């Protein structure tokens, strides 16, 4: 499988935390969900790909090539974040005028189609657009220059369910071309359950998991039981143990469920629960 984005031992040290030798890759033709709680290092990773922060060490390759000073590869990358990065007083039409000259393969017809389809008013200023519309504007730019890799940093945060679904639809459509790829950073995991094929999960700057989404979800179960069932051996195996008056709950590796007594329930879990319990587990372990 050809990789459209490869990150190898990416390290960036800050005073408060370190992105620690992060390695993962995004295969062509798939959507990689990039998850982790706030402050896990998702944005630092994405900004490193966009050369907006300078890693201390590690290597990033896009389309099989290391990042270079020319930034020419940005011709093939579409970057979308939660806030737009256009002049607030530019109109939707003005955004096209401002950026089209930089791209070799800019297609004004595609842009016109996108703004029509996304119901963006051409004369409306960026400032006057709703949050969802701003995200769609950035997607319109990305699609109009023929991006092959979409890098999305929390594009759906703050959007209502309808707008989020629309963004997911655009991504599904985008990925029908097998040469393309998407890295989709978000903490709204329900979006990823709809569209992501792969998941990279980071916590406190460290890689927890990278691989197929279903494999991650199937690797864990959510367990819950009464207080009397919680023995020391079980306590050690439960990730993010939540003790409460009536009993306990937490996350457990599926391979360990044989040790559960009959009065402890185990059921399928979700990406959101995995993040929550893993994060709690980290905190519990200090």
């Amino acid at each position: 499988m050809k990789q459209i984005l490869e990150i190898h031992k990416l390290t960036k040290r800050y005073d408060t935390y370190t992105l620690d030798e992060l390695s993962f890759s995004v295969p062509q033709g798939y959507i990689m969900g990039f998850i982790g709680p706030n402050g896990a290092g998702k944005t630092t990773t994405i900004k490193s790909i966009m050369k907006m922060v300078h890693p201390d060490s590690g290597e990033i390759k896009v389309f099989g090539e290391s990042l270079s000073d020319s930034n020419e590869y940005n011709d093939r990358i579409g970057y979308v974040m939660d806030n737009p990065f256009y002049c607030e007083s530019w109109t939707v039409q003005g955004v096209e005028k401002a950026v089209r000259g930089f791209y070799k393969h800019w297609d004004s017809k595609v842009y016109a189609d996108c703004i029509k389809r996304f119901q963006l008013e051409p004369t409306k200023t960026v400032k006057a657009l709703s949050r969802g519309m701003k995200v769609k504007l950035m997607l319109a730019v990305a699609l109009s220059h023929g991006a092959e890799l979409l890098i999305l940093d929390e594009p759906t945060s703050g959007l209502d369910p309808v707008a989020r679904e629309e963004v997911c639809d655009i991504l599904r459509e985008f990925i029908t071309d097998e040469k393309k790829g998407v890295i989709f950073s978000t903490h709204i995991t329900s979006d990823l359950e709809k569209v992501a094929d792969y998941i990279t999960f980071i916590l406190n700057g460290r890689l927890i998991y990278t691989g197929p989404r279903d494999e991650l979800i199937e690797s864990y179960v959510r367990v819950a039981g009464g207080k009397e069932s919680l023995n020391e051996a079980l306590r050690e195996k439960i990730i993010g143990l939540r003790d409460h008056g009536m009993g306990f709950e937490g996350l457990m590796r599926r391979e360990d469920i044989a040790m559960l007594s009959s009065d402890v329930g185990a059921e399928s879990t979700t990406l959101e629960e995995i993040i929550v319990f893993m994060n709690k587990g980290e905190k519990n372990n200090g």
Partner: protein
Amino acid sequence: MDKVMQAGRLDLMTLKSYVKPHMLVLFAGIAIFMGFSVEKSMSIAFGSMIGFLFVSYPFALAERDNLNTLYASLPVSRVKMIIGRYLFAATIIIIGAVSGSVLSALAMVVDKKSVDLKIIAITAAAFFVSFVLLLSIQFPLYYKLGYAKGRLVVFIPLMLVSAVGLFVGNNIKDTAVWTKVMAMAQWIETHPDLSVALVILAAVLSVVASIFASVKLSAKNEY
């Protein structure tokens, strides 16, 4: 070169969206008024100064509207973006100086005085070179510190230069240095073309040095 032009054009678009026609009419009015009431060349000075004031706009708007992220997402190198900004700045100052020159000439015509194109051209060139030298100092500081912090710091070198100039001006009379300065002034007077060429060369060199400084100082910037 095409990408440099695009970068300059991008800055121009950034500025254009904030400069409204009524502002230009107001500035033109002030320039004409100054041309009539004070001194004809003041129109040129005012035009160049307004142009100079506008050149720092892209730095301010980059911070306000997150445009550094836009620059990072474009398929153009940082160096070309920086050169594009200098190109934009030079264009804006030229537009200011030319507009001021036209208004100055207009004031002369209305005042029924003969229009001395040579004087106008020399005055406009002098203001252009002066403002280019100023931006050569300011831009690297903006690139290093950003607009919010930089706008205070950029005036420190200018104030220092003025203070040193004032001090030297008041204290070197009747000294050997003064004799040399006067000799230099005399040389300039007798070699006007060569002097202009040297000043232009100095301006070009300062811009080149400034671009190198901006590239170096912004290399570690993170957004």
